[in-house]
């Protein structure tokens, strides 16, 4: 029996996601083709709402070599921060590209904060040897998004599909054909065919409820890539930022410590001097978060009565009122509004918070996946420049650089291809999966409670410190949750049905969480953000390699690939 035809839309380049990476890719694809290519940006949000807006403190680039900074130093700091798991050829390419990106955004209108002489200002950030975090107050990601979105409206060839939820990647013979999506406004299921594609759907931080992430940061893009046969790389490396504000984990930027703020325990002690005597509060994020959890576990933390969460104090008083108001205005606003504390007067309650995933869709140095004609960029991808621990101010930077690269690569590829063709059966199967399987699905389990259970187990057993027992227990629970009958939709409307999206998101979260836990359990060493209580040392002999997780009919399979080392030989890290 032939099902009803699914409408097909055609474009040259199809970009999924509208954060910094997606928008930068769209502009580049349009620009390198002189506007001749037809570029689609498909996003489950409105195009300027992506989680990138929440990036606060900075974007790293070497702008002032005359003051001693160098590309070599930026590369070395990044590799050291990564605990030597970054691919060094990619890091070198990255740092070379960054100064141009800062100037490009400036020329498109970004209001970077300025020095007295009218040139771009930079500040200190954790893990760096020079102050190279370029900033626009403490709203860096927001201004980058605004600048890219406003600039993209100038390009006639960029078509936005806003509030379209992508459900699968279409391929034929190992080649990209397009995506399937639900138009949320009408509920129609549509195929968007393209000659080339870019996945730029961001990170998976909502595997945790105490997270700096937007609610929309679920691993939909990563899960669709896995289903299309592309492995995820290094997913066990999850960054816990030292300062998430109690109660919900809103980010208090590292720039607070860059400007002079200090972490203090309940005895009033600046405890970082015991853990990182040289860099103190500005050691890399994994180091500071582990120090904080040790302080808390040894009884030197505070407890929040309402949430039961343990925390420490972040004291901003050394920064001074004037600088707090001029350079950290958003932080002050957030603290007053969400916690009722003016940080100019009282310390902020903070604890380590899920902030970034170093892993992502496995890509090469150009951002290309294993599917011909498909690239991935930004947090959704793993190049890898971040290895086992990303330095602050390098993520927005990575989104810009690989947004640009993949936009250009995809455009060149698409320019040499004939018309996009449809793939038939895959589309019908996907439609059945979503509408027969979920929209008309039956079940007694509340999908939102499945999400809650998942987030609880991640917070308990897949947090800053991990053990074989905890991870095994987590893996068992995840596999149990997957068998529950939560794949159903109570909302019967086709118009703006967020319930359907939410169920699809929960399904993706379970798949990707399993990848994270399996990778973490297998990796019997401590490296960067992956800290095993039972294996406290880095083990270069056995584990200086990337994890690759494949998804197939028989479930999950792990494999490994080698790390590219050019000139920075692995040594022990000290801060």
């Amino acid at each position, binding site marked *: 029996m032939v099902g009803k035809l699914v409408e097909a839309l055609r474009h040259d380049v199809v970009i999924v996601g509208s954060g910094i990476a997606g928008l930068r890719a769209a502009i580049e694809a349009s620009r390198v083709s002189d506007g001749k290519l037809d570029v689609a940006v498909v996003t489950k949000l409105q195009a300027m709402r992506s989680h990138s807006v929440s990036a606060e403190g900075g974007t790293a680039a070497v702008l002032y070599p005359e003051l001693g900074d160098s590309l070599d130093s930026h590369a*070395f700091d990044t590799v*050291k921060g990564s605990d030597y798991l970054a691919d060094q050829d990619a890091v*070198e390419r990255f740092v070379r590209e960054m100064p141009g990106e*800062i100037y490009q955004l400036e020329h498109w209108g970004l209001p970077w904060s300025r020095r007295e*002489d009218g*040139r771009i200002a930079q500040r200190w950030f954790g893990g760096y040897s020079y102050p190279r975090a370029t900033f626009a107050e403490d709203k860096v990601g927001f201004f980058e998004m605004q600048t890219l979105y406003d600039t993209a409206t*100038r390009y006639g060839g960029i078509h936005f599909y806003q509030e379209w939820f992508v459900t699968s990647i279409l391929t034929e013979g190992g080649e990209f054909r397009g995506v399937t999506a639900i138009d949320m406004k009408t509920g129609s299921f549509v195929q968007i065919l393209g000659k080339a594609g870019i996945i730029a759907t961001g990170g998976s931080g909502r595997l945790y409820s105490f997270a700096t992430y937007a609610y929309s940061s679920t691993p939909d893009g990563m899960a669709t890539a896995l289903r299309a046969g592309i492995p995820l790389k290094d997913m066990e490396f999850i960054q816990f930022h030292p300062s998430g504000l109690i109660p919900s984990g809103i980010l208090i930027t590292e720039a607070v410590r860059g400007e002079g703020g200090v972490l203090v325990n309940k005895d009033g002690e600046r405890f970082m001097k015991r853990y990182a005597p040289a860099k103190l509060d500005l050691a890399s994020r994994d180091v500071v978060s582990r120090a904080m959890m040790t302080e808390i576990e040894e009884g030197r933390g505070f407890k929040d009565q309402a949430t039961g969460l343990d925390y420490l104090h972040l004291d901003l008083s050394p920064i001074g009122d004037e600088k707090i108001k001029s350079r950290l205005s958003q932080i002050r606003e957030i603290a007053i509004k969400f916690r009722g504390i003016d940080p100019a007067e009282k310390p902020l309650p903070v604890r380590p918070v899920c902030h970034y995933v170093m892993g992502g869709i496995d890509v090469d140095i150009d951002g290309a996946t294993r599917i011909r004609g498909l690239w991935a960029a930004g947090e959704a991808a793993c190049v890898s420049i971040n290895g086992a621990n990303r330095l602050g101010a390098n993520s927005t930077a990575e989104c810009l650089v690989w947004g640009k690269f993949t936009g250009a690569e995809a455009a060149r590829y698409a320019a040499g291809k004939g018309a996009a063709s449809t793939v038939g059966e895959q589309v019908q199967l996907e439609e059945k999966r979503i509408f027969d399987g979920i929209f008309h699905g039956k079940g007694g389990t509340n999908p939102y409670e499945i999400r809650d259970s998942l987030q609880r187990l991640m917070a308990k057993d897949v947090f800053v410190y991990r053990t074989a027992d905890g991870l095994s227990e987590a893996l068992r629970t995840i596999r149990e949750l997957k068998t529950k009958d939560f794949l159903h939709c109570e909302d019967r409307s086709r118009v703006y049905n967020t319930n359907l999206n939410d169920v699809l998101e929960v399904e993706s979260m379970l798949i990707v969480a399993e990848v994270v836990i399996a990778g973490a359990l297998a990796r019997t060493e401590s490296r960067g953000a992956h800290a095993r209580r039972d294996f406290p040392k880095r083990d270069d002999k056995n584990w200086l390699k990337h994890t690759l997780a494949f998804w197939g009919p028989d479930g999950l399979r792990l494999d490994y690939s080698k790390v590219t080392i050019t000139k920075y030989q692995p040594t022990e890290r000290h801060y």
Partner: protein
Amino acid sequence: MTDVRLLVQRFDPFKDEEPRLVEYKVPKREGMTVLDAILYARDYVDHSIALRFSCRQASCGSCGMKINGRPRLACYTQVDELAGEKVVAQPMENFAIIRDLVTDLGSFFEKHAEVVPQLVRSDLQEQEHPTSEYVMKPEELTRVLQFTYCIKCGLCTSSCPTVATDSEFPGPQALAQAYRYTADVRDEGGDGRIAILDTPHGIWRCHFAGSCSYVCPKGVDPALGIQLLKRHVMSGHAPRKAGEGSPTAKAGIPAHGPGSGSSSGG
């Protein structure tokens, strides 16, 4: 623990003739925002409540709605700060309703795009292939800064009495952004923007009710921006012409690559 009495306006265009208010009981917790309350109802009481939300920290602009009669961001409104015993959530005015709390912002984004919200320069080669930055003094930045805080949430436009009566009026959001780019010392596109906006349906339709500035959650003063645009026109104080935007700094992109110099740190 007390309950919050949450009333959400529901409307499905395929089912309902009229919007109606539906009450949900939500257990209150310390620091609860209106967004938290609605999401509790959505997750555990009625999965079919439709709303937009994302960042939950007043940066993304998704969750604009009318709360107890006033346009606000749901994530940026504490239940405790509302007077009265009920929390009433309704869609923003001046926009068509798609469903429940979700409104159609399509023409709002189009109007924003129409005011040329980009830096316009005559040195196109430099602008697209930068060698350095355009110089901008801190005080020149400060002059435009508040107008750059716009998150495109639509609250100002939903509160504007002129938008309610003139569909051709660009609205406070778009006009404030026209001012933001025109007042930027790096920009040379003011003449073009003013040609679009110096019309009966443009800046002159604003009669300075000021509600836009009152409701903005980010401290932008669109009403002021519109008055400053009017002053530009009236004073004959022309914006910068082609070639008059601020120049580039002398220094440039570091030419040396990794490989020069020794590694630092350790």
